């Protein structure tokens, strides 16, 4: 992935390129550690580290708005709720429990199903826009104004309808969770 993008890209040459490789390896390492850890809290901490490193990669790619939102939403919000649930359930794994149980065979079968399309896209897509235009993430209609503005122009003008549809979906899911969570409507004040 690093090689495909670094070829000809102004963003990922020199120090930035090496930083990207470092971050990418660390992301992979922490992601593996999430699955490998026996203690769910340790898994959650590795996942947190992985989210923060992904934010670093976004910032390295000059998509600083996406990086900050990644930290704010995933590291600051969602992971806190994850930890909250893990601590409420409070299941400390007993020593000797294997980290992987019986999903080995299914996982090995499914691996090519996901890997082959992924590698195909990586191999054929040239990422031309990014390679030729380092300001791809910060320009609106040819004018370089900044990542925050670029994202908001895309979100609230070009893709307003999909954005609103997605938020309605989330609202529906939220209402559904509230309805399922309530035992009966009479008891709740």
């Amino acid at each position, binding site marked *: 992935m690093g090689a495909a993008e670094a070829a000809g890209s102004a963003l990922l040459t020199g120090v930035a390129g090496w930083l990207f490789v470092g971050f990418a390896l660390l992301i992979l390492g922490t992601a593996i550690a999430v699955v490998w850890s026996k*203690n769910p*809290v*340790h898994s959650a*901490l590795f996942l*947190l580290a992985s989210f*923060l490193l992904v934010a670093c990669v976004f910032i390295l790619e000059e998509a*600083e*708005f996406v990086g*900050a*939102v990644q*930290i*704010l939403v995933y*590291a*600051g*919000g969602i992971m*806190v*709720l994850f*930890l*909250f649930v893990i*601590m*409420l359930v*409070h299941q400390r794994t007993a020593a000797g429990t294997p980290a992987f149980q019986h999903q080995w065979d299914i996982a090995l079968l499914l691996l090519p199903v996901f890997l082959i399309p992924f590698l195909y896209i990586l191999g054929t897509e040239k990422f031309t826009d990014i390679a030729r235009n380092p300001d791809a993430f910060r320009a609106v209609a040819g004018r370089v104004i*900044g*990542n*925050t503005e670029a994202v908001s122009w895309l979100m609230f003008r070009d893709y307003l309808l999909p954005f609103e549809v997605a938020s309605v979906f989330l609202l529906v899911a939220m209402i559904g969770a509230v309805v399922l969570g309530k035992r009966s409507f009479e008891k709740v004040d």
Partner: protein
Amino acid sequence: MKILTPTFLTYVKVLLIVAVVPAIVGFVIVLAERRIMGFMQVRLGPNRVGPKGTLQGLADLLKLVTKEDVTPARAEKFVHFLAPVLAVIPALTALAVIPMGPSIRLARHVSTPLWVADINIGLLFLLAITSIGVYGIILGGWASNNKYSMLGGLRSAAQLVSYEVPMGLSLVAVLLMTRSLSLVEIVMRQDRMQLWFVFPGLLSFFLYFVSGVAETNRNPFDLPEAESELVSGFNTEYSGVKFAFFFLGEYAAMIIISCVAVTVFFGGWLPPFGHVKALSFLHIVPPFLWFLAKVGFFIFCYIWFRSTFPRYRFDQLMALGWKWMIPLSLVNIVIVALAILWTPGRTDGLVRLGWLFGALFLLMFFLAKLRQALARRDRLASEPAGTRQSALKA
């Protein structure tokens, strides 16, 4: 003068922040807090170490450093060690984007601005970094292997996630006025508009500061460490330097909340009403001192709240956050947006909104005073004359 390159000066500024802020916390804020609380509670406060107790910080430091570092028997050792570090580092990192003053001249042809970095996602960066600080408290509570610590950590998680929402939304209303996330640009715009955003953003400021008090776990929202129920909560099992780190983290977070309040709502380093001719003498005071004075005022408010407000109950805290603050902050965004659309391209709408908020504020203040006076008159009238006399004497 080759040595004073911008990169070198940045390193110097980073070192200054990391070295000076803990010292200010230990020697100035903690002492001020204890003396002011002593004054408000009609007692003396620490007055033995050094003249008027000014060296109390040194005594506290020596005590904390020489204390035994206890780790509970079945605690998660590494996480127990990591938690205090996680509480401090985000708070100190966030200080990097706070603009404390315009450029100052160090030597001929060498001047440097009083901020480490002016990034164009400044405010968002602040929100993101400070939202990481909660992990110190949650993990400290969990790793201690203690029921009370655990409850403190869980309370803190719920509280911080809840109050981050109104805090973010109250700043969104200000972003409509600033059109920039850069904190330097926010101050500059207040200078150009000749208007501090606290006036059109009075409601925003109220929501922001109340959420800020909740975010820093301070009275009246200090439920994660409620000593009467949780024997000090998440930090029960911490002693010595690790405890000092939690302490430093809490106070550094207070400084951050105050700095953001000053920068976003109170014009940062600008003197009050600097464009008014009659008040131009205020420019004699250096900008950095204006900034410090304003931040100091907010730290004082924190201390003032602590010694005057009773603590909320946890369900009251959640009800306040979700049923009042979040709807109110959404309404506030609509109000500010309407004020901006009222006079497109100009700022008259915001000025008028400022006057409106100011008038409403004064009206509410006088109504509250009137109610207080009426209640007092009723209370005195309902008591027999004799008891009133004795009560007055006592």
